[in-house]
């Protein structure tokens, strides 16, 4: 089976890879680009652990083919913290102890950051519905929701 050559941008860097036609973006990120931050919890778009940004849109990378991202901009959890500074969402997740095992955390980070870029002042309900596609089995979501609301407040420059 011949492979497909793809040129794309991942976390701002130009990258090229070869992938099989049936290979998902998640497989490409994990197996070909060694970016294992996005996780495969289900492979069917139900759990959100593989969340990445594709051309500014939040997607489940297990439902995107690697061959589809030619010329696109992909952002993964690995690209969110810069110059040793964590994104407020990352920082608040830590401060609120909003992770236990941490397997869902990369997807939550990507999804929550995407929410706050669209909506700087979400209500608790808006956060809950936005993150309804990100399954967490450990926390019961309470501390995650609080962390995201707190991050939103910090980004707006107010205290929660």
């Amino acid at each position, binding site marked *: *089976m011949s492979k497909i050559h793809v040129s794309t941008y991942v976390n701002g860097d130009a990258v090229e890879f070869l992938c*099989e036609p*049936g*290979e998902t973006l998640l*497989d490409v990120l*994990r*197996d070909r680009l*060694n*970016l*294992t*931050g*996005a*996780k*495969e*919890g*289900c*492979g*069917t778009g*139900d*759990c959100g*652990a593989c969340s990445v940004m594709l051309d500014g849109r939040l997607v489940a990378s297990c439902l995107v083919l690697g061959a589809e991202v030619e010329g696109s901009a992909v952002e*993964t*959890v*690995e690209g*969110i*913290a810069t110059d040793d500074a*964590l994104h407020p969402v*990352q920082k608040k*997740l*830590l*401060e*609120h*102890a909003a*992770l*236990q*095992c*941490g*397997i*869902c*955390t*990369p997807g939550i*980070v990507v999804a929550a950051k995407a929410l706050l870029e669209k909506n700087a002042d979400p209500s608790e*309900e808006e956060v*809950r*519905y936005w*993150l*309804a*596609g*990100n*399954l*967490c*089995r*450990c*926390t*019961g*979501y*309470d*501390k*995650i*929701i609080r962390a995201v609301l707190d991050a939103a407040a910090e980004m707006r420059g107010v205290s929660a």
Partner: protein
Amino acid sequence: MSKQDFKILGTRPIRPDGLDKVTGKAMFGADKSVTGMLHARILRSPHAHAEIVSIDTSKAKALPGVKAVITGADFDELKNRWTGYTSQNCMAQDRALYDGHAVAAVAAISKSIAAAALKLIEVEYNLLPHVTDVDEAMKPGAPVLHVGVKARKLGDEVSGNTVGYYSFGHGDLETGFAEADEVIERSFKTAATHQGYIEPHACLADLGSDGRGELWCSTQGHYNVRLICAEILDIEESQLRVTASEIGGGFGGKTTVFIEPVALMLSRKSGKPVKAVMTRDEVFRASGPTMSSSMDIKIGMSKDGRITAAQAKLRYQGGAFPYQMVMMGAMSAFAAYDLDHVQSEGWDVMTNRPKMISYRAPGAPMAVYAVEAVVDELCQKLELDPIDTRLKNAAREGTKSSYGPTFKAIGLVEALEAAKAHPHYSAPLAENTGRGVSCGFWFNFGGQVSVSMAINADGTVNLIEGNPDIGGSRASISMMAAEALGIPLDRIRTIVGDTASVGFSDVTDGSRVTFAVGIATINAANAAIKEMCKRAAMIWEIDEDAVEWVDGAAQPTGHNAGEFPPMSLAEIAAVSGKTGGPIAGHHEGAPDKAGVSFGVHLVDVEVDPETGFTAVKRYTAFQDVGKAIHPAYVEGQIQGGAVQGIGWALNEEYIYGEDGRLQNPGFLDYRIPVASDLPMIDPVIIEVPNPGHPFGVRGCGETAIVPPLAAVSNGVSRAIGKRMFELPMSPPKILKAIG
């Protein structure tokens, strides 16, 4: 035991593994790859019960890129019966015993070739009768999964699938029921649920022809993995080094092996490293789940709310192999109550379903659900307050428990009183809303543990423990080490060692890690402190016994011992090379005084009378944890357990068709709670110190999944004015009950 003053315990520092987990660096089971690695795939039975007549792997072997194909024929029969069952669960021998049972496996140079190879394996099955329901499986004449394993005490009234029977209690039921003003007897059913960890089972195995192996895997206990795999692969334990990856949830489901022996066998056969990762479909069909149940509960109560007699009959279904777990349910059922006349009996039953494995407080949630539902119905019938009634019957220090032991200091009364005093309990209820209450209980365990601690010359400390960190234990262990040594938390780095780095440690289960590893850490610190005092004595040229450790420094015990300024840990460590060499402390032991833990949950649920949909509106969970080392992670355990219980109560179930196949092996159809389903979960930590731990720690991880089933069920029953007797309470069932 009086409350102690602590410097570090009870604070909420950032966890040491946190940065890696929010940036995507943390390495979980499927995140490790090595050069030349092959990919494994496992072929699974589509049948609930079938004789494997033949397996033809020749076409798969001939596919370019396929490096090894294995079947049950590659696995030897084992002397140890229980490991034998585990082995047969990983790879079927002559029969496939459930939908999803592994029958063959391949290793190939790519995932796609491995997947293609699976389709080329030809299996001839001879279908056999199957049974998936517990009551059907117990009936004489039911298809029997394994012959000759029936529990000895049982007669012809039950089938050979009934592999365990247990009975606990004291007093005389007849006397007790005669004293009751009201007796209620009900039957309940609960569905099997899955632990639902988001990370599928994953491992990377490398086993050489010289019998030396490396195994990286997501597990709750890598020593246990080593023990089982060494036996199955017939290699020496010392030669198999197992490293626990970061673990993406387990909840009991990663306390055994599923794919690890398969990957090791494929590696041995191919001579190459092999990575195996389950799909979510495989996780549901072939790992986990917990038991389903069918239960009869009979409780008698006096008009003033005193339970006069209580009886439970619990029938659990645990899948395709003998198992022992209903015992936990029978022991837990009435643990919350101080009773004169009580009996609980349990039957373990095999069916054509995946082999059960522990799920958070295994066996307790369903038993306690049924008991607490009947207690609630009695309260309604006798017009009694549910919390006052529970207080009237509550177990306390000195109570002879229904399962035998007499309780030491426990916190059930404190939890009930906190619940009664909480604003939630007196808040007004909206229309179509009901308030449910339930108690819950878990034993907690101690178990074998090893900790090794090195004092570095720069005054920092490395600590190696052998228990995978599943919810923040490196933080709590580091905190206990800092507290015991009297040094700042940031001087300590705790890691989970591989099986070659530190002594044996039992599985991360039974809510045991903070308790048992904590004790070992304190003892290791004390050993290091003893050595540091000795070094200070040597430097000061005074007697070793004349030195004591105060606030992280050695100092003379008094003026008579001599006048020397205190020497800090860092100062002693800095000169250790000249006073006898490196300083370390270690401890190996098996602490057994884990204190039992009780919880009380309050929930308000709103039931839509038109759709039967239940919305959880408010939730407050009270739990005695002994001492909360890192309160934020203790709260997290309480919140997470409560939500798993809510899922069990409302949504989650294994659904089997007439054909014995699992109909919902995916997160879309097996619906665990999502963020939009829930309100905030308000945790209230109660601290009644465990006299069996230097800091008062009790396990806290499991108790919280026990009360929600009944709390939600009692809330729904009160909201709709009809009692519910089956979980999950999906909308169709609620509509049917409303009528």
